[in-house]
């Protein structure tokens, strides 16, 4: 443990000196974030957490002042009205989603910590759903203070609207459990009445007692058939109406026929009853469905948490055309307000573009995957994503629906999209059912001629024993469980086909920015080229990059605002403060730079080639020199020539080299395609052990490179991040985005790495491959079972209750086999 952080388990960077005394010994930490969290835990006498946990927590991202500041917005009554419920005069109750829970000790830690905040009257965390209900006294504590307290121990809490999806899921869960109980209890009790009849020898039981038993069984089977089995009848009826034959048809037919025949036998006091078989069959079937539903809900919850990441806040320009901004909750935006949508951000409202030129991705709303161009006067739709440049919008319509609508769209997409394999299994099962019904009919006719009394039971047995439930469950059960398991590894699957494709992938292509590196290039040197003083150059940078979401733009802006560089000797005064002049007509050119007008002067900032188009002056020697050393060079210039040069460098993520090695060990070919200069890319690739690395790639080049790989027969997984990667991600067979990446990349990607740690990708690939193996096992088993059981049933050797057990057992086996994927939780 000496080299790893005591709190989060990440390696401790050399030179870091953070330590906290826990249980009598100093423990080394990897960063100030972990240190602050550990101190908060110890100071609250909650150090027990470290003894009980059986999984390491997520590393706390260093608390962002902006994020903490935004917590204050949650105290606003306008924001609260969606998720805070008054209880009594001063008490309030809210539902929270807790992020970062990895084990039971986390639940305890949060519960104990929140409960000790003065003014908190009740707290209740559901271990299974990671949802918390908090009740507090408004006079003593504010909601933001509670959220802050949770942030202090390293977790993130977000209020959510309890009214919608969660309530629905809970209702579904309770209904399913109730159906299962009715079927199970009915089954046990009916068996009680059936066993004596089976056991009694000839003449030991009088006919009236047997008739009494039959009536008792009938009374208890009635709710099982009418209530518990209702979903099968409903879905079978729906299938028939649509002219399809689903797997519920034989189930409904079998249950219906057996129940009707048994009821007839009871009424006429003649023939045999099989109430016990009917109830048992329904119970086993529902058990399988229940397990599958639990797995599915777990998977959906992860998706919901992802969608929550879409901000509840937006940027308003209260005194437009003045460009000073304020962050406010979306709920507070009124019609007629002016808001700023930065590139990569989700547009929070329906509105009209006032200024700016960009394109909006509306694929979530319309399914149209190409971004739609937006210029002044165009209408934009809330929920679409601004792709290229900042847009100033006039708000036309607001609605609390925007964020929720997006959540629903994301969830629906994941649920509605049937993976190819499931579709295939369904198609095969459909044909299988038709064949089966024919076989059952033929069997019934043949048996009618052999032994009319047994014909019905053989017919029912054939229907039941060979129901292709196992075949239909084989793939979706494995996929849903795998989705849940991968979510726990920090790999969120948002598309149906992603797991299958990830398992088959032969190539992993990384985009350097933000995937293998921190994604935060830092300015390491700046140079004024004679036109103006460096300090003025910085002011221009701040103006041009004011709305930039690109990592390089952000780095420049951050450096401009504080004017800090690690090496002041290279010409940057340690602290510069100034009021940035406003820039207008900002246009971002993907992969090249930003153009804008500042004080009447047309300026460009970006790659030297892009800036040179403005003035055609020769490139300064330093630019080539820095580029050769592997750094990213950003130039600033106007029509008169160069103004300044900036050197930026990015550092690889701590686990990147290990992740690349692990992926290679899994037999994957690794490539790196980056828009950065070839020198920087080559140096980075050498450090990480990547052989195939190409730099200076435009999005079109990346697109072509991936297409070339695919034409060579490779299955390509692309790990991308930025706004400009969206079309490239779409070209790859399976696209993977970083959780901290732009919303556009996240909402388009098939897979999201929530943890931002590329090492989790290897776990994702491992789980995906095991999933494919389990699916194959399931399909083989389902096939073998059906092929061997049908002839036996047709020969009349299987009674309906045996058939019920056989069919349910084969379905359960398939589900259990799938559940194996759930094991091996991350340490």
């Amino acid at each position: 443990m000496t080299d790893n952080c005591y709190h989060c388990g990440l390696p401790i960077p050399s030179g870091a000196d953070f330590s906290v005394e826990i249980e009598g010994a100093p423990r080394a930490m990897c960063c100030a974030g972990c240190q602050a969290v550990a101190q908060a835990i110890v100071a609250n006498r909650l150090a027990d957490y470290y003894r009980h946990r059986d999984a390491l927590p997520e590393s706390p991202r260093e608390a962002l002042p902006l994020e903490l500041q935004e917590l204050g917005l949650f105290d606003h009554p306008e924001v609260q009205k969606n998720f805070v419920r008054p209880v009594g005069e001063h008490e309030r109750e809210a539902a929270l989603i807790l992020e970062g829970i990895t084990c039971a000790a986390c639940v305890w830690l949060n519960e104990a910590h929140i409960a000790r905040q003065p003014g908190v009257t009740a707290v209740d965390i559901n271990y299974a759903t990671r949802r918390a209900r908090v009740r507090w006294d408004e006079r003593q504590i504010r909601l933001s203070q509670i959220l802050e307290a949770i942030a202090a121990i390293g977790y993130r809490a977000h209020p959510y609207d309890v009214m919608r999806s969660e309530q629905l899921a809970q209702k579904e869960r309770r209904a399913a459990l109730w159906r299962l109980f009715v079927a199970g209890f009915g089954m046990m009790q009916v068996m009680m009445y059936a066993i004596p009849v089976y056991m009694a020898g000839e003449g030991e039981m009088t006919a009236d007692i047997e008739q009494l038993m039959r009536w008792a069984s009938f009374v208890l089977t009635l709710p099982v058939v009418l209530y518990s089995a209702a979903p099968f009848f409903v879905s079978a009826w729906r299938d028939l109406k649509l002219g399809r034959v689903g797997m519920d048809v034989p189930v409904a037919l079998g249950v219906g026929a057996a129940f009707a025949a048994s009821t007839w036998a009871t009424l006429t006091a003649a023939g045999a009853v099989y109430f016990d078989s009917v109830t048992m069959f329904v119970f086993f079937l529902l058990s399988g469905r229940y397990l599958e539903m639990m797995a599915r809900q777990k998977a959906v919850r992860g998706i919901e948490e992802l969608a929550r990441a879409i901000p509840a806040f937006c940027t308003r320009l209260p005194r437009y055309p003045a460009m000073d901004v304020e962050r406010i909750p979306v709920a507070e935006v009124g019609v007629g307000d002016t808001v700023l949508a930065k590139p990569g951000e989700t547009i929070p409202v329906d509105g009209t573009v006032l200024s700016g030129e960009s394109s909006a991705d509306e694929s979530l709303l319309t399914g149209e995957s190409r971004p739609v161009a937006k210029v002044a006067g165009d209408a934009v739709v809330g929920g679409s994503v601004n792709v290229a440049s900042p847009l100033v919008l006039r708000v036309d319509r607001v609605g609390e629906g925007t964020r929720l609508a997006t959540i629903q769209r994301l969830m629906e997409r994941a649920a509605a999209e049937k993976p190819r394999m499931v579709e295939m299994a369904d198609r095969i099962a459909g044909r299988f059912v038709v064949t089966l019904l024919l076989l059952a009919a033929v069997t019934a006719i043949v048996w009618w001629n052999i032994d009319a009394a047994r014909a019905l039971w053989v017919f029912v047995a054939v229907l039941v024993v060979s129901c292709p439930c196992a075949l239909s469950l084989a793939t979706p059960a494995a996929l849903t469980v795998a989705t849940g398991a991968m979510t726990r590894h920090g790999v969120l699957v948002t598309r149906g086909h992603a797991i299958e494709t990830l398992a088959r992938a032969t190539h992993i292509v990384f985009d350097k920015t933000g995937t293998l590196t921190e994604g935060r290039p830092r300015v390491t040197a700046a140079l004024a080229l004679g036109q103006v003083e460096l300090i003025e150059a910085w002011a221009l940078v701040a103006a041009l990059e004011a709305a930039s979401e690109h990592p390089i733009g952000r780095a420049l802006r951050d450096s401009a605002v504080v004017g800090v560089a690690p090496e002041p000797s290279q010409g940057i005064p340690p602290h510069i403060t100034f009021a940035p002049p406003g820039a207008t007509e900002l246009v971002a050119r993907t992969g090249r730079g930003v153009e804008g007008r500042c004080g009447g002067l047309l300026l460009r900032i970006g790659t030297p080639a892009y800036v040179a188009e403005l003035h055609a002056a020769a490139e300064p020697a330093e630019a080539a020199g820095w580029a050769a050393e592997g750094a990213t060079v950003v130039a600033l210039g106007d029509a008169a020539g160069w103004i300044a040069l900036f050197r930026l460098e990015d550092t690889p993520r701590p686990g990147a080299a290990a992740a690349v090695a692990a992926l290679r060990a899994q037999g994957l070919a690794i490539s790196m395609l980056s828009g950065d200069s070839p020198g920087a890319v080559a140096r980075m690739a050498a450090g990480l052990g990547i052989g195939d690395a190409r730099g200076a790639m435009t999005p079109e080049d990346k697109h072509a490179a991936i297409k070339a790989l695919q034409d060579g027969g490779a299955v390509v997984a692309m790990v991308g991040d930025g706004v400009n990667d969206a079309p490239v991600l779409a070209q790859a067979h399976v696209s993977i985005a970083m959780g901290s990446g732009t919303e556009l990349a996240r909402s388009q990607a098939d897979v999201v790495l929530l943890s931002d740690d590329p090492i989790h990708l290897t776990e994702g690939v491992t789980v995906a491959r095991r999933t494919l193996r389990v699916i194959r096992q399931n399909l083989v088993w389902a096939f073998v079972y059906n092929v061997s059981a049908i002839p036996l049933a047709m020969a009349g050797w299987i009674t309906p209750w045996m058939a019920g057990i056989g069919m349910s057992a084969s379905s359960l086996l398939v589900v259990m086999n799938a559940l194996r994927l759930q094991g091996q939780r991350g340490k």
Partner: protein
Amino acid sequence: MDILYLLIPLSIVLVFLIGAGFWWSLKSGQFDDLDGPGYRILMDDDRVRAEDGQDASLPENPPK
């Protein structure tokens, strides 16, 4: 054997009563979280011991 005419209807009534009991527990949310309470009871014991009998409800300042 005539007693069966009383006992079997009685058992059916009992089944429905138990069913109603389960329905009530389901409605009141007792089956919503099946994992949590098991862990919770383990944790709580240890906390009291670790605090040397100090009052758990002692107000604390929230850490910054």
